[in-house]
């Protein structure tokens, strides 16, 4: 199916139609998610209103992980099947994923302060998320560290795939480390059980942020395609100038 999308013109035509739909879904789910999250959902019996932070924290966390997975898969398409759009998709995903992992850390910190009294807790989830942030950072830094962009793309893609292999191991080892050092975890960030009424805004926000990411990724890929065309045109006109005057 992805071969079919490889042609940039076809890609542009299809996304031209889909983009408004994606934006529409984003706005609808965002507004309803915010409404239910902030107004129409119950307070937690332990955490009170503070549980509402969950409606931005958990979707960010989920999206940060999912986007990294997508990033690695996109890199596989680039390296193995040499799909022409795959690299553009990878470089579009990376900053968005990095932002979500950073947001997870900040909202996690803001949630932790009223709950546990400190601005940061080295619990397994937050620590893994911190490492994931550095996986993203490594990808972004490496892809920009070479003279030719293509070298950066290829090496960073390998890094992303190695990262994907390592990520479950890192998550496991951090979980392991955490249980070794904290025999009894009292309140899990998220509460021992989630009320059904809380599930709705949570799912809505996950959808909202997912479709938002999708919209941005499509937009960025299109922009990069246009930039490539501009580069090609500039190169052509430079060559023509040189051949005229030379």
């Amino acid at each position, binding site marked *: 199916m992805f071969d079919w999308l490889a042609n940039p013109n076809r890609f542009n035509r299809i996304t031209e139609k889909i983009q408004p739909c994606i934006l529409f879904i984003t706005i609808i789910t965002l507004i309803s998610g915010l409404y239910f999250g902030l107004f129409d959902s119950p307070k937690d019996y332990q955490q009170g209103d503070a549980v509402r932070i969950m409606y931005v924290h958990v979707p960010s966390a989920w999206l940060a992980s999912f986007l990294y997975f997508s990033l690695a898969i996109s890199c596989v398409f680039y390296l193995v099947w040499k799909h022409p759009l795959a690299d553009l998709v990878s470089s579009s995903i990376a900053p968005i994923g990095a932002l979500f992992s950073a947001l997870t850390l900040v909202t996690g910190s803001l949630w932790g302060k*009223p709950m546990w009294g400190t601005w940061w807790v080295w619990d397994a989830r937050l620590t893994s998320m911190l490492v994931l942030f550095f996986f993203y950072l490594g990808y972004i830094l490496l892809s920009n560290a070479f003279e030719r962009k293509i070298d950066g793309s290829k090496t960073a893609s390998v890094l992303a795939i190695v990262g994907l292999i390592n990520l479950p191991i890192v998550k496991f080892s951090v979980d392991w480390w955490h249980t070794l050092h904290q025999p009894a975890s009292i309140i899990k960030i998220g509460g021992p059980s989630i009320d059904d009424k809380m599930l709705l805004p949570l799912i809505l926000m996950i959808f909202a942020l997912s479709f938002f990411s999708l919209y941005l990724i499509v937009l960025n890929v299109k922009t990069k395609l246009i930039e490539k065309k501009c580069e090609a045109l500039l190169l052509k006109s430079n060559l023509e100038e040189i051949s005229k005057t030379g």
Partner: protein
Amino acid sequence: MNESFWIMQGYEIYIWPSYVLTLLSLGLLFVHSTKQSQKAKKLLKQLSKTKN
């Protein structure tokens, strides 16, 4: 929306910054991407015109 909504049981200094930060950063990313897209489209138009 009475007082208690905004105060959120005293957690408001944690809840509102979380939401505002999230929405603001996503909004900024949106604006940035849109601007880049428009800039690229304009450049393409210019280049195609001068070619023809």
